[in-house]
């Protein structure tokens, strides 16, 4: 048992399965000074809209927010790559005093004439409202002048959590929907929501649906295109992955355009197959779709099963810690890891809801630690206590794993390898195996001692 100190105020966001009652606090602003792994509202908006490749993304504020989000994600485009540019109004002191509207206006006009985007997203960062900029009015004026949709994204960092940023992004996107021509769209058609085409994942998933005989009207937002989004209300069904970010949009589309939605995940064989079957079942009036789906699932699983079994033999019995953005991904990861015979001993998310944590609790084994909005000390503490062999998370969690001497698998948007779908599961298994089985661990302590912490000599001074 490690003696890394925890904060009392954080106790209600840490749960150990078996210790009833279960009453997980979540969805609240991170505790000041806790060193949360979360980012901010702006981050939430930026990640959702980022892959829209033919839109201009202009970040209104001082330089930091744009500099830190320049071309850092593995979201691929099959065509334009405007999303990989970082544009900022780069507000300076005089702008803070006199306002940034003029700068924003001219920056937009200049960028739109230079890059001819299909739409522009203007992200408000922390100080924009405080210095009194009316971003909505500037966007409207530029939209009228240029003839393209110029959409404000209300993503001031402090106005809520990352989840509010998702919502702001969904609201901005929603204002595009309903504007395009829907003629010619098949009755057997879907939108893929919450798939960001990391390493080409959306292309794989799209190809499954196409083989099933289903038209994909738009992917929001992987390899995204403004015109596709504009006509996405012509689809019959919304298929939502990464539900934490995109359910809001699906709800709005249901309400306004009457498009139903289902929640799916493409991580792991089980969930990928279930996603395809669920979509096929929705179009049950065409039995051919289900037939094709069965064949696709059979073929795809057959293509990867043998190697997965080989890997399973080598990794089974290992213990994993997972800490991800949305809880829905954690569900899939638990299943995918179980398939490989790996036990999850810690599961946490930045933005899970009460209902998500209930499901997580049901899924997890006894004594598993469940964390909401954790920090690096909590993650370290429980990784040590539970003697995990593997950590699955993002860039910020990587050094935690490595310093503690355990393997790591990046499952965040910065990665370059597709982990979704059947091939993605194979990639995932390979990566898990590669990191766990690396010979480098022979030189690191098996399980790091944290005993000195309890003796009050935490830092060698």
């Amino acid at each position, binding site marked *: 048992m490690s003696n890394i100190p925890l904060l009392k105020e954080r106790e209600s966001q840490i749960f150990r399965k078996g210790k009833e009652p279960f009453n997980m606090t979540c969805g609240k602003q991170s*505790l000041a*000074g806790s060193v949360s792994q979360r980012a901010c509202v702006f981050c939430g908006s930026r990640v959702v809209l980022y892959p829209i490749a033919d839109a201009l993304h202009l970040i209104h504020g001082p330089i930091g927010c744009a500099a830190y989000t320049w071309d850092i994600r593995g979201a691929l485009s099959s065509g334009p790559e405007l999303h990989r540019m970082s544009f900022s109004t780069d507000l300076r002191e005089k702008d803070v005093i006199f306002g940034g509207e003029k700068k924003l206006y001219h920056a937009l006009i200049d960028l739109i004439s230079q890059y001819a985007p299909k739409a522009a997203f203007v992200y408000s960062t922390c100080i924009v409202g405080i210095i009194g900029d009316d971003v909505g009015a500037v966007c409207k004026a530029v939209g009228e002048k240029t003839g393209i949709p110029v959409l404000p994204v209300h993503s001031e960092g402090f106005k809520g959590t990352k989840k509010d940023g998702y919502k702001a992004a969904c609201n901005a996107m929603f204002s595009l929907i309903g504007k395009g021509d829907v003629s010619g769209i098949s009755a057997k058609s879907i939108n893929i929501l919450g798939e960001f085409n990391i390493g080409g994942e959306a292309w794989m998933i799209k190809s499954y649906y196409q083989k099933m005989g289903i038209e994909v009207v738009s992917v929001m937002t992987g390899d995204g295109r403004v015109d596709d989004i504009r006509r996405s209300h012509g689809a019959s069904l919304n298929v939502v992955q990464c539900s934490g970010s995109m359910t809001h949009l699906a709800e709005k589309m249901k309400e306004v355009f009457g498009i139903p939605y289902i929640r799916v995940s493409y991580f792991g064989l089980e969930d990928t197959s279930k996603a395809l079957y669920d979509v096929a079942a929705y179009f049950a009036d065409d039995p051919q779709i289900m037939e094709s789906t069965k064949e696709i699932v059979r073929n795809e699983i057959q293509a990867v099963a043998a190697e997965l079994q080989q890997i399973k033999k080598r990794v089974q019995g290992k213990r994993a810690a997972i800490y991800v953005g949305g809880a829905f991904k954690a569900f899939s990861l638990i299943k995918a890891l179980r398939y490989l015979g790996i036990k999850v001993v810690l599961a946490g998310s930045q933005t899970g809801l009460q209902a998500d944590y209930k499901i997580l609790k049901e899924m997890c084994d006894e004594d598993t630690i469940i964390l909401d909005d954790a920090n690096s000390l909590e993650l370290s503490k429980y990784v040590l206590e539970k003697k995990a062999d593997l950590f699955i998370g993002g860039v910020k969690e990587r*050094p935690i794993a490595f310093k503690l001497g355990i393997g790591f698998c990046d499952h965040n948007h910065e990665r370059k390898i597709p982990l979704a779908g059947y091939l993605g599961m194979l990639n995932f298994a390979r990566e898990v195996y590669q990191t766990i089985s690396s010979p480098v661990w022979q030189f690191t302590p098996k399980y790091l001692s944290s005993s000195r912490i309890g003796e009050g000599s935490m830092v060698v001074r």
Partner: protein
Amino acid sequence: MKSMIEQRSAKEYTATKNACKLCAPLGASLVFKGIEGAIPLLHGSQGCSTYIRRYLISHFKEPVDIACSNFAEETAIFGGGMNLKIALQNIHQQYDPSLVGIATTCLSETIGDDVPMFLREYAEQHRNEKTAPLVHVSTPSYQGTHMQGFHNAVLATVKSVTTTGNFSNIGHVNIFPGMVSPADLRYLKEILTDFQIPYMMLPDYSKTLDGSIWSEYQLIPEGGTTVEMIRCSGNAAGSLEFGRILSREKQSAGKWLREKFHVDCHHLGLPIGINETDRFFQVLEILSGRPTPDKYREERGRLIDSYVDGHKHMIAAKVALYGEEDLVVGMAAFFSEIGIQPVLCASGDHSGYLKEEIARLFPSDLDQSIRVMDNADFMDIESAVQDIKPDLIVGNSKGFAMARRLGIPMVRIGFPIHDRVDASRKLHLGYRGTQQLFDRIANKLIEYRQASSTVGYTYM
């Protein structure tokens, strides 16, 4: 509104496209990471600390804990005092720090938070508890770049921690190296140790951000300048401060210590190349009263020998150079010794001194064959590079996309290096660092010529 905004020409208000700079709180965080047992605390939104952590982690490949006061909507309305105090309390509880470095952000600066007052109140409220020294630095991201944040944090730390008192006079020197790599910091310490000069180097993240594998858990990674040593900086025998640009700024830690404590300050350029490194070693000889140890004389000798051996590979090579102004000036000084033409010297900083400093190194070439750009972004740099068609690009990782598009070979230096594994171990300073730079640059030029030749020479 519309008529008003249409008055100005669009040129005056273009966006920054792919910035060649970062924001001030990043520089400040880096400084605080170089103090033993210290935790940086950003007073602003949660994203500020998380983005900066991710950016630093991707470069240093080490844990980087940066706390935040996590503004909420009501914080921005009623002020951040309460949040800052909660953050300080939680940091003390979790980390038991030896110092907390509080850097403001654009948000807390814009709403006008009186951070010094909050800190006085906190100290008052906790006067019966063990409280770490609290250093406050003002780093709104709308002012300057990460470099300014860095230097301001060094100054703020020295100002706030240095005390007058009867310290045993150990004859130490203060060294303010600027934003250099952990390998550079280690090498500087080695040099000072070999000269038998006791030192206070601020910051020193050579271990905290380039540590070894742990055998036990470290709440705050070990290493860094001790608060105790910083406290004595007013008692030093002298200060060394690197950076030709910094030396021209009104304020710096070295200047403050000279004014306040009469500590003599030696302003030097970043010691890259023979000439700047010679100046550094001359100062060390004076301060220590010892000759340069043979080890360094030999390093210098080998470096000059390699200059001679390799000069034909370098001569007339055109290089596009970018990065922080002081790094650009330091590299340009080195290039001036080996016949490389830095045809483009660009920086996202904008001190106003860059052009003069480059002109000093290349008095006859400026404007004709050397283009100097400050306040530049990567689109400015790329269009200049496209125009100039240099043989080589030298700078941080963020120029890779440009180098790839234009098919120009690239040597990575400085910060950030997000696409290689050895960012922390890259050496730039002194005879040894220059040797590494010389070898890397010469080899890159040779490699490119070799690869683009149709003959396939194995003997160059």
